[in-house]
């Protein structure tokens, strides 16, 4: 059966604000799933809490709308138990980098083979526009009583420092590029992180769609806006770690972090860093449990006719007082 984008849409009413950047992300996820022809029952969207948390209800695959900050914990548990699932976790920047920051860092260390997309708009939208961890110091978005007094988290830099092995940034109004990035993220062997710049039309009156397109910066000669967003793939930037070599690894990580610091006049999108030489968690498990991938937890039979088929004789024998343990 050929899958179309429409097959991945539910009929749940989408109650995001008109003009919300989240629409572009949902569309891109649906397009990516259709393009990869992943059977619907083999993929699952896990989401956090907030506007972005509703994403799982709009996509017609398994949808697990979890708790604020905890989406990665649920998603990793499912993926580890059943590595045959394609799992995409989504959440807001407050969800993933504020309340869930500890899980973000720990997930990087594990490198479970799945994708995590952060809907990054620098505000807590659903609770009416408080400053989120990615809002810059000193900025005062619409509903803040006073300017933000915290420094911002750099999601790309944090992901690289934490051990994510695919780190990219998309822009929700460039759905085509975003779809390609999602496909690349899902196909990546390891934990992929995608930071999606997503203007909140209601509460972020600084980083608006017009701001990203440079409507406030008119080129004097062409009389056209000078967009802030540019694509790394249009430059000679090479994000890939090609060799198991410390010098190259350090250089690739460093260049990605430096690149991620660009803001204001030039904002890069695309793949910042990609390293498939670091073993994913699933591979690390096969070092301990050789048949883990063929017979993971979710596929194991545990009973026959209501009786356990696990044999515990050896364990119990070792506890028998009649015998010594080394017999």
């Amino acid at each position: 059966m050929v899958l179309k984008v429409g097959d991945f849409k539910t009929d749940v009413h989408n109650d995001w604000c008109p003009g919300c950047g989240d629409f572009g992300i949902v569309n891109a996820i649906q397009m990516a799933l259709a393009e990869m022809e992943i059977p619907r029952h083999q993929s699952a969207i896990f989401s956090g809490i907030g506007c972005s948390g509703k994403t799982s209800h709009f996509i017609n695959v398994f949808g697990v709308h979890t708790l604020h900050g905890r989406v990665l914990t649920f998603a990793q548990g499912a993926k580890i138990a059943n590595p045959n699932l394609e799992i995409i976790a989504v959440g807001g920047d407050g969800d993933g980098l504020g309340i869930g920051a500890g899980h973000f860092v720990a997930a990087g260390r594990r490198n479970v083979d799945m994708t995590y997309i952060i809907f990054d708009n620098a505000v807590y939208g659903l609770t009416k526009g408080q400053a989120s961890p990615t809002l810059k110091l000193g900025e005062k978005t619409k509903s803040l009583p006073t300017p933000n007094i915290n420094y911002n988290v750099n999601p790309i830099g944090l992901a690289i420092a934490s051990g994510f092995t695919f780190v990219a940034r998309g822009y929700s109004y460039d759905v085509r590029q975003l779809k390609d990035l999602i496909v690349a993220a899902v196909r990546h062997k390891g934990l992929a992180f995608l930071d999606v710049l997503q203007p909140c039309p209601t509460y972020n009156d600084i980083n608006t769609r017009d701001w990203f397109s440079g409507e406030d910066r008119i080129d004097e000669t062409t009389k056209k806006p000078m967009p802030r967003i540019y694509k790394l793939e249009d430059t000679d930037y090479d994000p890939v770690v090609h060799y198991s070599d410390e010098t190259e690894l350090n250089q690739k990580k460093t260049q990605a972090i430096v690149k991620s610091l660009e803001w204001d006049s030039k904002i890069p999108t695309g793949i910042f860093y990609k390293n498939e030489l670091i073993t994913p968690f699933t591979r690390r498990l096969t070092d301990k449990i050789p048949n883990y991938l063929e017979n993971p937890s979710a596929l194991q039979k545990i009973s026959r006719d209501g009786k356990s088929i696990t044999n515990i004789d050896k364990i119990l024998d070792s506890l028998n007082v009649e015998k010594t343990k080394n017999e």
Partner: protein
Amino acid sequence: MATDFTWMIGGPQGSGVETAANIFSQVFSKMGYQIFGKREYYSNIKGEHSYFAVRISDEKIRSSVKGTNMLIAFDAETIFRHADDVLENGIIIYDSTLENMRVSDVITFENDFKDRLENLLKSKNKEATVKGMLDLASENGVKVHSVSFRSLLTELSEKLENPRIKNMSRMFNVLGVSLSLGLLMIPSEKLTDSVNSIFSKKKPIAEINVSAANFAYNYAAAKFEHNNLKFATKDIQDNTILVQGYYGTSIGKIISGCRFQSYYPITPATDESNFLETNEILEINEGRPGSTLVVQTEDEISAIGMAIGSSLTGVRSATCTSGPGFALMTECLSWAGINEVPVVITFYQRSGPSTGLPTRHGQDDLLCAINSGVGEFPRIVYASGNVSDSFYDTTQVFNYADIFQVPVIHMLDKFIASSVTTCERFDETKVNIDRGKLLEEITSDNYNRFAHTEDGISPRSKLGLENGIFWNTGDESDTQGHISEDPVNRVEKMDKRQSRLGYILEKIPESEQIIQHSEGDFCIVSWGSTQGPILDAIEMLKNDGIDIGFIEIKLLHPFPKELLKKHLSNSKTIINVEANYDGQLGSLIRQNLEKDPDYYILKFTGRPMTCTEIYDTLKKITNNNAQKREVLTYGA
């Protein structure tokens, strides 16, 4: 006359006290004796005082007693802390080089304890030294044996022509246990066997320890004055195993088909996860090897989050924690509740509040387990009374979780976790697996995860199952699992979930909800690990011609109110026994039976109850000279 003997060894943490106790326990279990051992230790890696008391008997024992028959001390602190616990005609074997150590030389004493100790010695006109303490013991009829542990090593070193042995003070533990076995004239080959078995993974270390063990054994056999204690070798009862307390739930999880356990390190719960990981590859009858995935997470929130995620794929999943960890889990627990996700939380309680006494025993999290969470949702809280029960109960709690599609909190505690006991080999033929309405195949194209059904439980799909797509959300939801704030749907969904509590009481067999161990006008109502000391105390009272009833409540939530009423109908006096301050089960009894228990026997020192203490208190109650609230305090 029946043998009933308590042996104790103490020493700084890291000095191998546990190893010595394991040698002792193995020796006596191989001689056909019943064992009940308990370990006490500080929240500390090295240096603070720890001790291990092993009770042996030729009859069934389930708890510790008050008092020690033989104490082994190779440091001053052990003598200061325990010498006055040694009973008349008891024995102390100690390192003679400690004699002049003063109370003030022991830097690990709490100030309060130091003051109490100095006052005690002063009131008895003894100097504040080890010698003073030992003189006091001698006056109480204790036989004191002194030997220089250091000289033993020196002599052994010369005998074996191995100068390194001279400085191997880490073998003091093996010397201590071997001296005691030599004094008791236990067949020496049992000692050799046990030492070999305990060090079986390190041959050279086993060899040197066997030499030390035999040397100390022979020394004591030749030099110590023997008493008339005799320990005959008995027939080992068939199928006896010697287990650490946490083996019950660990092995229970393996046989139940729990294939995913996530955890964050916390005392006293971590040993279980460690056991599961050590035994992660599983033998499957007529099948390829299985495995338990054990994942150490970044915190307890992640531990339960992962377990829930895993459970959604159809895997029997669990986490194991203690009070502070459970406190972090409550939001996810609520999510599992609203989404009807079967997940097992194995809850090894310790003593709170907050960090409290992190390595000590307590049963003060009962109401926390029952009440913690956001909003109202069904859950099961189920408690086990001993190691063996905890094996069978573990297999049941996974069934309950699957059948009723609720989170199950399985209550245990530090007393169970760190006891060592002989018991009957766990019988796997008694284990049943019932996965409830979990689906393996869906052929229709209109599956709804939360569809209404007659019994209120919907057929359950799992992530990855064709035609079984569902949605979950922590919001209220419709039958597909999509968010719904509709008030009519809300009422239906609340009814669907909360009616489960009544259904659980209806479906779980009465014998699994409450155990009536015995009947009497005076009737104890209790839960969890107090079972052992209560049963032993009841036996003791029976010998005095007094029958005491005992009702153990295993299903604590939903509370089996009517069943408890029925069980209590013939009892005149209700005695609530618990290891906490408030009498938490007592409050459930007050709430459900509208009746205040007549007596409360409580202990919250962080040390487990002994049968002797319960016996003494029950005596007071039956003699009508007890307070309504009796607080137990025995134990160092």
